[in-house]
């Protein structure tokens, strides 16, 4: 940041706020916001953080069941898996970063979803992913596939969490906008689950993990912006992941969680320090004072704006009991991670940010959350797909089979999963390729957790409601196929530009279908993520929306992992076909 920019509507527009939204900022502030304050509003009100286009629809999904401990709203969903244990899981997208830098984009996507899960007190026990790439004929696809697969493996393998499943499709609509959805599942004791609502006026706020640099500033708003041709020039926003530090952070946080020190904890994900501090204080109904001079910094001369918006990876924010800071410091010293007290909770209901003796931001938290924009965007039925042609030249069963097996959407994925450590932890009962769902045993018990990711985007394109329902049903079937009782789903709703009524129509219909299926199967949605503005610019300058892709991550439980069923046919057994063909 050189000379401070004048804050006005023009700057607000650059930050992704509409004129109406900026008017609302002015009304809340009662004055012109500072540069840093505008930055805070812009990221908190971005699509990524506020779900402003999707919230009205997400509310229609069923989210409860007797076994659901925490549904959407926390860092991840939590379900009862028996014996006093809970599975904690969520899926999250890193689509736009993975187009800009496939390796780092995918790697940091895995890192982010891992933090969402261990932040709640769970040791991560499995990773999955749902990937969509452009046409195999497109030369760029190979580079992106290679980078994404290396990135997922590079991060998960190093952290030591097995990658046990996933799915991959190819379609030209993803040419300029691949989808990288990563899912993590962890296990915690039900009485040791950590939430993010801050409490206790005066309690210290501590920062742990890596230092803050200038990486990824405005990543959250970028994640919400349709991909323009200048994507290349947005490159400096790339964040580099450090899975080694993440591994240390997992161990250190779990060690601290075994004490009674933590009041609330949240990872610094999109919009980093801003979203974590605003959400923690907001949920707890308290205020928060931050002293940015205390923030561990990797670079010199960082401004308040840069620190508040940085998306440097592998960082956590913790509200701690004041008499436990020494214990916490000792643990983070042991794991050689940065540790700093950067603020405390107040009774003002405001976030106050100080830097070098200047108050850089002072915002009432309630309106920042409550008056966030909420859009019920117009929907229109998406055009029905062109009818499939009648197969004019039957090619014979054998040739058809060969063609099918060779088709990129069906061909073996061994090339991919061979690069993912699927056995680390020593609990993987069904590895990739071995069954319709992966099965991982919970260490020290006989409980098996079955996991799958599913979606068939071309079905959703053909009929969004049925396609949304189908994705849920397929996940349910894959879980039951290994003998598991399906419990709940996480989702990752990847769609195009919601300001286009046909896209919004797909979105609404897909959610309606998912909801119907989830209700019918008693299979609630306990966490998820929405990624909009997934579009590619065609050579002629027009934009093409991706195929609508509501990826479903399903989780089920087996009381006895030893009962898990696999795919392999065994000799001397009968093969029975169920259902009408």
């Amino acid at each position, binding site marked *: 940041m050189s000379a401070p920019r004048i804050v006005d509507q023009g700057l607000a527009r650059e930050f992704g706020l509409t004129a109406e939204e900026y008017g609302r900022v002015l009304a809340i502030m009662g004055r012109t916001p500072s540069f840093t304050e505008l930055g805070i509003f812009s990221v908190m009100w971005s699509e990524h953080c506020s779900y402003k286009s999707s919230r009205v629809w997400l509310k229609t999904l069923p989210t409860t069941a007797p076994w659901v401990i925490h549904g959407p709203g926390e860092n991840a969903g939590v379900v009862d898996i028996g014996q006093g244990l809970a599975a904690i899981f969520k899926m999250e997208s890193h689509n736009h970063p993975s187009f*800009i*830098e496939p*390796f*780092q984009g995918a790697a940091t996507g895995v890192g982010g979803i891992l933090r969402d899960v261990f932040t709640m007190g769970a040791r991560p026990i499995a990773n999955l992913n749902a990937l969509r790439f452009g046409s195999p004929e497109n030369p760029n696809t190979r580079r992106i596939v290679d980078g994404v697969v290396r990135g997922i493996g590079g991060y998960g393998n190093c952290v030591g969490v097995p990658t046990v499943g996933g799915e991959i499709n190819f379609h030209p609509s993803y040419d300029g906008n691949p989808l990288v959805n990563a899912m993590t599942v962890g296990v915690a004791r039900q009485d040791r689950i950590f939430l993010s609502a801050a409490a206790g006026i005066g309690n210290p706020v501590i920062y742990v993990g*890596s230092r803050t*640099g*200038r*990486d990824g500033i405005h990543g959250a708003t970028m994640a919400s912006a349709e991909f323009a041709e200048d994507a290349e020039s947005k*490159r*400096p926003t*790339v*964040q*580099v*992941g*450090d899975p*080694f*530090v993440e591994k240390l952070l997992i161990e250190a946080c779990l060690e601290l969680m075994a004490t009674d020190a933590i009041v609330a904890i949240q990872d610094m994900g999109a919009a980093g320090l801003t979203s974590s501090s605003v959400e923690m204080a907001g949920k707890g109904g308290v205020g928060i004072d931050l002293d940015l001079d205390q923030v561990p910094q*990797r*670079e010199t001369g960082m401004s308040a704006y840069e620190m508040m918006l940085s998306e*440097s*990876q592998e960082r956590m924010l913790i509200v701690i009991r004041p008499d436990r800071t020494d214990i916490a410091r000792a643990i983070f010293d042991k794991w*050689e991670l940065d540790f700093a007290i950067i603020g405390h909770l107040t009774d003002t209901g405001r976030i106050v940010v100080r830097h070098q003796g200047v108050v850089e931001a002072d915002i009432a938290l309630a309106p920042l959350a409550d008056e966030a924009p909420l859009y019920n965007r117009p929907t229109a039925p998406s055009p029905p797909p062109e009818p499939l042609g009648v197969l004019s030249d039957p090619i014979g069963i054998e040739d058809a089979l060969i063609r099918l097996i060779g088709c990129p959407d069906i061909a073996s994925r061994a090339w991919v999963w061979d690069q993912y450590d699927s056995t680390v932890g020593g609990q993987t009962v069904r590895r990739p390729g071995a069954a319709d769902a992966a099965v991982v045993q919970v260490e020290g018990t006989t409980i098996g957790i079955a996991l799958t990711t599913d979606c068939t985007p071309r079905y959703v394109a053909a009929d969004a409601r049925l396609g949304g329902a189908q994705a849920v049903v397929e996940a349910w079937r894959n879980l039951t196929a290994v003998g598991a009782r399906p419990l709940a789903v996480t989702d990752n709703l990847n769609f195009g530009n919601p300001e286009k009524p046909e896209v919004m129509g797909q979105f609404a219909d897909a959610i309606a279908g998912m909801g119907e299926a989830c209700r019918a199967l008693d299979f609630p949605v306990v966490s998820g993520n929405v990624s909009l503005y997934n579009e590619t610019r065609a050579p002629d300058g027009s934009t093409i929306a991706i195929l609508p892709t509501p990826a479903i991550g399903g989780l089920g439980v087996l009381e006895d992992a030893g009962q898990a069923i696999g795919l392999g046919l065994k000799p001397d057994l009968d093969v029975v076909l169920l259902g009408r063909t």
Partner: protein
Amino acid sequence: MKVRVTVMLKDGVLDPPGKAIGHALHTLGFPNVGMVRAGRVIELDLDETDPALAKAQADQMGRKLLANLVIETFTTEVVG
């Protein structure tokens, strides 16, 4: 002709290996080590006798393959 392409991370990009190496050197008894940056070097034999052309080719290879220009920069030199 032999050329050397040296690839380093751009300033400001997090360098996990550099950080870890600096840390290890401190513990090994080199307290006066400050910032450490880790990079890659690629040495290529080129069937080319004109140093200027060799360097030009190396530059092209750097841009096309050897460096990831999103996060890295590179330099080239003719070394023999």
